[in-house]
Structures are given as structure tokens and as C-alpha cells.
């Protein structure tokens, strides 16, 4: 009887408080891998970045406001009218064939043609990374990735207790010579990495792409040394200019490259749809892992994607996004030229969502974020992209989730707090430290792309260990 239901009380959703003794009891239960999680102080800081008055260049959000609501409504209506029961039902663990056709279209746009049997549809690309780790990693197993790497991959590697090695990058992406050095070093200890994780195109957070030559080298090394490469490619189609670069999966044909894709950046992150392409023996285990994790990916959103792709205009939407993000990228680079002090340096991405800026060593961007938040602006401190405490003088700036005037104002505010800290350091030390970037790369006046001149020479990703 309906009337018998207890009335909801406001405090019903909260459990009773935990006593100190409970805490000790829980602490004794925690798995070792929970010990590597990030400090709560930093989590609290990041939570403040969500305040409405804060201009947040911290997110990695695509701009979903540009997706036409009429189109969304029409597709969901059609699903309700024509496939209501199926769309509300469980689906196959591997994902629907129709979804696989859609994602194969996306991969074909970058010259790839995977066997549908090698594909699994996942709950976002993030789950694909998790499942690959779950399948391949025992505690202590070596993994190699870029330094900086995708901040969202760091907790995954940590939770599987990987021994993560980060290889430096420059303007052409991961340094292959350093990768080989790490491989040699591991080999010297009788070890081999389970895989090399890379975001080769418009990397998150660095904003740079692996050059064509290095892509070929990487695939060659993978074959010679029989090392798996996990290619995470969320941004490949978000190219603003420049030549197309072949995905590693295309170069390799899928023998040593496991591919991770997503609809998040070309359609919507809210639908949580990604995928993974792997050789059959690996795929078999990945499917088992997926079954254990969540049985299947959302049926409803798979239906949505199938309807959306059936309209045949998904490329137009990607093109529209590219136009919007290109202008925002321009606005951000222009604002950086104008407002950041000469001691700072940053990447000049030709696609994707992010710029990576590096400040002088004496500035910790975690502390700087606290100061920036007082001026209602936020970014991601660079340490989030490393497992080993490096990156503390860098920051990730997102240009896809804010409009051009917000970007300009946000960068102006960050530039102001950076400038204050630089000036303070100089008065404390009584010296003017050499600019980390070549000051020649700065235009005399704030200005256009061309005015920046040799800006492309700035290599902000090279750490200056020897200076420390």
C-alpha cells in the first residue's frame, strides 16, 4: 500500500557518523593500492574549481552546448517509439554490432579498418584503459607512458600497482631515444614492460603530437622487442591544421597495438561510450573483465549513437567542433602571449583540447592554484600528470570548455598571479633568473599567430633536472 511507505526524512540519505575506532577498523581493511591516492587537500582545491563564479580552464570538457537539442530529442523519440523494450534491456558484453559499425566509421576516418571481432564497446575510453590494465598487470609490473601523461590514467596505473616509468616528451611527442633507454634499463634487470601507454595525437595534457617518423619508430620497436603499445586516441579527429598523422594501429595492423577510442570528444562524454580494439587472445580476457565490471555498456546510449550515425552527419558536427575549438585555441595562445611573463613557456597545439604551460622551477602550481582561486580562475596543476612528483611547475589549460572571452580573462588572471610570484622571487633572491624559454620567441607586441615568430621552438616539456 502506497500510504505505508515511510516518509522520507531529510537526514535519511546520510549514514550515522564514524567513530575513531571505526576508522581504525576500516584503515586495517584498505587494500595497499588505496595508499597511493592523491592528497585530500588537493582534491578539496579541485572541488572549489567547480564554483560557478570560477573561470575554470581546469576541465577537459568538450562543448556539448553546440549539439542541437532538437536532434537529440528526435533520436531519443525514435528509439522510444521503435525499440523501447530492447533499448531498456541488457545487451551483449562486447557491444552491439550496430555500435561497432559506427565506431568503425570513426576509425575509418583516420585510415583504420579493424575486424569487428577484435572490438569491445566500453563505458567510455576510461574503462578501456582500466580493462587493459586489469587484463595485463600484476602488482609491480612495469608500464611505460609519456611524462606528462593523461592525468586520468595515473589513478588507473596506481590502482593496479604498476611500476610506472614516464618518458620525457618534446614538440614531437614521446622521446623515442629515451623510450629505448628505459627499455634497455628494464631489460638489464631482466624485466619488460607489459605495455607502453601513449596518446600520440594532441596529447592530454601536453597538446603535442608524436611525429610521423617517431610513430614508425615506435611501431618498429614494439615489433622488434615484442612489446604491446596501448594507443589512446580521443582527439585524433580534432585537427585544426597541419598534416594528418597515421594512427599507430594503422601502421602496425593491430599485432602489437591495442587501440582505445571514444565518442566523448566527437559527440558526447555523457553517453559514456568508448571502445577497445585488441588482438583476439587479449580481447578474450578483456571481455571477461568487462563482464565482471559491469556486464555490458549502456544499451540506451548505444541505441542513441546508432540513430545518430544513421543520419550520416556526424562528420559535420566534428567539423563544427573543430572550427569552434580552433578559435578558442587561438584565443588562448593569443592571451598567453599577451599576459604570461617571459619566464613561462607553453605548447602550441594543432588540435585537441589542451595547452601545457611550464613556469620557472621555483613556482609550485599546486600552491599557485590556491592563489589563482582567490581570483576565481582555475587550471590543473601539472603534478597530476606524473606518478613521481614531477610536473610541479607546469599546468594544463583547457580551451574547449570556455568561450573566447572567458579564456582571455582566465589567462589574464593566471598571468597576473604568475607575474606576482615571479616578481616576488626575484626580489627575494635579488636576481633575475634566466628565462626558462628563449625570450627571442616572444613577440615584441602582443599579437597574432605570426607575430609569435619562432614560438614553435619552445620546448616546455623538457625538464631541467640539472638546474635543480
Amino acid at each position, binding site marked *: 500500500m502506497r500510504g505505508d511507505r515511510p516518509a522520507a526524512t*531529510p*537526514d535519511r540519505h*546520510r549514514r*550515522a*557518523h*564514524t*567513530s*575513531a*575506532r*571505526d*576508522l581504525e577498523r576500516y*584503515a586495517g581493511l*584498505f587494500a595497499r593500492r*588505496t*595508499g597511493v591516492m592523491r*592528497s*585530500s*587537500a*588537493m*582534491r*578539496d*582545491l579541485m*572541488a*572549489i574549481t567547480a*564554483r560557478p563564479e570560477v573561470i575554470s580552464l581546469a576541465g577537459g570538457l568538450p562543448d556539448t552546448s553546440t549539439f542541437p537539442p532538437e536532434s537529440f530529442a528526435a533520436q531519443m523519440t525514435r528509439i522510444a517509439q521503435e525499440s523501447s523494450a530492447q533499448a531498456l534491456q541488457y545487451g551483449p558484453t562486447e557491444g552491439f554490432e550496430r555500435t561497432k559499425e559506427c565506431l568503425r566509421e570513426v576509425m575509418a576516418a583516420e585510415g583504420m579498418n579493424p575486424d569487428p571481432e577484435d572490438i569491445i564497446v566500453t563505458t567510455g575510453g576510461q574503462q578501456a584503459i582500466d580493462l587493459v590494465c586489469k587484463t595485463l598487470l600484476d602488482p609491480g609490473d612495469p608500464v611505460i607512458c609519456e611524462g606528462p601523461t593523461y592525468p586520468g590514467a595515473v589513478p588507473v596505473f596506481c590502482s593496479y600497482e604498476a611500476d610506472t616509468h614516464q618518458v620525457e616528451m618534446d614538440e614531437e611527442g614521446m622521446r623515442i631515444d629515451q623510450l629505448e633507454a628505459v627499455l634497455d634499463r628494464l631489460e638489464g634487470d631482466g624485466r619488460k614492460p607489459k605495455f607502453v601507454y601513449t596518446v600520440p595525437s594532441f596529447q592530454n595534457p601536453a597538446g603535442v603530437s608524436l611525429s610521423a617518423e617517431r610513430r614508425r619508430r615506435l611501431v618498429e620497436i614494439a615489433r622488434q622487442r615484442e612489446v604491446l603499445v596501448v594507443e589512446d586516441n580521443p582527439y585524433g579527429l580534432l585537427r585544426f591544421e597541419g598534416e594528418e598523422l597515421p594512427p599507430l594501429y594503422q601502421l602496425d595492423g593491430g599485432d602489437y597495438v591495442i587501440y582505445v577510442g571514444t565518442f566523448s570528444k566527437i559527440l558526447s562524454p555523457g553517453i559514456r561510450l568508448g571502445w577497445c580494439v585488441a588482438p583476439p587472445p587479449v580481447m578474450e580476457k578483456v571481455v571477461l573483465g568487462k563482464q565482471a565490471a559491469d556486464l555490458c555498456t549502456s544499451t540506451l546510449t548505444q541505441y542513441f549513437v546508432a540513430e545518430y550515425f544513421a543520419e550520416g552527419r556526424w562528420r559535420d558536427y566534428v567539423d563544427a567542433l573543430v572550427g569552434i575549438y580552433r578559435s578558442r585555441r587561438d584565443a588562448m595562445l593569443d592571451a598567453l602571449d599577451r599576459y604570461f611573463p617571459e619566464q613561462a613557456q607553453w605548447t602550441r597545439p594543432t588540435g585537441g583540447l589542451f595547452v601545457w604551460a611550464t613556469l620557472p*622551477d*621555483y*613556482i*609550485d602550481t599546486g*600552491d*599557485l592554484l*590556491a*592563489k589563482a*582561486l582567490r581570483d576565481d580562475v582555475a587550471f590543473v596543476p601539472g603534478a597530476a600528470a606524473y606518478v613521481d612528483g614531477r610536473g610541479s611547475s607546469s599546468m594544463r589549460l583547457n580551451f574547449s570548455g570556455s568561450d573566447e572571452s572567458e579564456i582571455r580573462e582566465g589567462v589574464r588572471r593566471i598571468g597576473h598571479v604568475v607575474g606576482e*610570484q615571479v*616578481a*616576488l*622571487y626575484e*626580489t*627575494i*633572491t*635579488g636576481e633575475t633568473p634566466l628565462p626558462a624559454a628563449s625570450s627571442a620567441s616572444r613577440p615584441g607586441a602582443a599579437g597574432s599567430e605570426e607575430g609569435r615568430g619562432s614560438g614553435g621552438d619552445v620546448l616546455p616539456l623538457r625538464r631541467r633536472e640539472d638546474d635543480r
Partner: protein
Amino acid sequence: MRVAVLAGGRSLERGVSLRSGARVEDALRSLGHDVISVDPGADLVQRLKSERPDVAFIALHGPGGEDGTVQELLEIVGIPYTGPGVTACMRCMDKVTAKQEIRAAGLPTPDWVAFNATAFRELGAADTLDEIEQRLGFPLVVKPARQGSSLGVEFAPSRAEVPEALVAAFSYDDRVLLERYVRGRELAVGILDGAPLPIVEAIPKQEDFFNFEARYEIGRTDYVCPAELSAPDTATVHEAARSTWDALGCAGFARVDVMLGGADGTAETRGPQVLEVNAIPGLTDTSLFPQAAEAAGLAFEELCERIVELAGERSRTAALQG
């Protein structure tokens, strides 16, 4: 009773405050109080005026909520509130002011110097670093004057690390202090209505010894309550904390952080050295003050009830005196 729980706010400790507030709300509701959640913002005074609570439970941490600002507003609109009054909050929030009061009362606190950013930017304060080194020695600890949760607190083992530590500390406040480092046992003394609670000792894991943020992480720091101290040590630490409470004019509840210097130290670092006072200590599941209360046999609900009672008593006393 109708209790407004103030939690959240705009400070960097918003997250801790929300966790403190949620726990306090649960406790007060389970005691049968009519609880109103208030996240202070531009509408704070309007809400207080329209809701007319009997008492405001302040679970705010950091500037704005712990520095006397909110307390002043509550005085003006005539709502009794928990914890120390306006002046005590102002003194406690600023570590420099607090240390001046502590020293003036003849209580031990590690020697320090303090600067604001202007001193460096406009008055050549950097040229005093030699004198500072002579006076305080190394290592030393650099702290922002008004910031809680050890944010921006940096350890400087030698002269070379000082500029970077200053830049970090100045990210949190325009005033910083450089304090002599005292090696010893890290103790926290909760005080409820003037009576010290059992002492909590924080024992950081070796690798996190100089990472002050780790002091707030379960698993990275072990907490022992009551701390294993001799009876005379317990007595002197309690006495130092209690006198500090008086010197700063605290009321309701507060937490005094003390470093107990080893017997092998110099005259300036031996025995209890008062570091700071938290006018509104954390009340989360992992916070020290509730642990200390629990060790004294006071469940969290009883603790909250007592804190609310004290707010009422103080406001009645003030009314009689006024």
C-alpha cells in the same frame, strides 16, 4: 532547538568544512534539534534573519568563517554562535598575532620573524635573510599567517630552499612567518569549555616527515590518543595549552597544537612549544578534536550538544554583563 549549521563557505578548506558540517548536522538531528544547513554566501545575513535560528553552529574553517568575520555578523544580528568570539577568532586565525599573544603571556612558542609581501617587494626585506639565519638557524618552517590545514606550510632545510618556500607560502596569504623548527613530538590538545581533553599525538610515516599535507591523511600519519606521555609531560602540555586558551581569550571549544621538544634540545626548544590555535578545529570523521573527545568518553552527539549549550550560556552571560 533550532540550529543553523554554517558549513562550506569560500575558503580553500571548503571541502573539510562541508564534511565537518554534515557530521554535525547528523548529530544534532539525532538529538532532536531542528537543523538548517547554511552555506554562507551573499545571502547569509538575509537567511539568518528569515530563519531566525536559536543558535548558529559554525563549522567553517579558514578565512571568512574562522577569522571573526562570520562571528561579527552573528553578533550584529543577535544570534548566539558556537566556538570562540570575534576577537579570539581574529587572534587565532593569524598565526603571527597568536604567537605575539602567546609570547606576551610568557608562554613558550618557537622564535619567528614575519613579513608581508610588501616588505619584499618594496622594502628590501630579502636583505635581512642573513640576520634571520643567525637568529633562527636551519632548518626552519615557512608558513602563511592566515591559512589552515597546513596548506602552504613548507620546510626549508637550508638557505637555498627559503625563496621557493616563501613563494609557496605567499600563494596563500600576503603575510608569512619563518619559524624555528623544533624537533619533537607533535601533539594536539582539544579544549572544551576551558578543560583540556586527552592529548592526541600525530606520528607521521618516515617518508612523509616533511610533507605537512600528510598530517591530514589517514594511513600517512598515525594518531595515538591518549598520547603515550609521562604524567609530568601530560601535565605541562595541558598547562601550556590551557594557558594559551586563556591568553587568546577562547571560548566554547578550540584545539591547541603543541610541539613537545626533546630533553636534549636547547633551552629554546625544550618542553612544550605552542605552535598555533585552531579556533574552529575540524569535526570530520578523521579530525583530531572528536577523537580526543571520544577518548574522554564524550560521544560525538554529546560533544555537539555541549558545544551548542556553551554557545547559549556565553550569550546569556554576555547579555547579563551587557
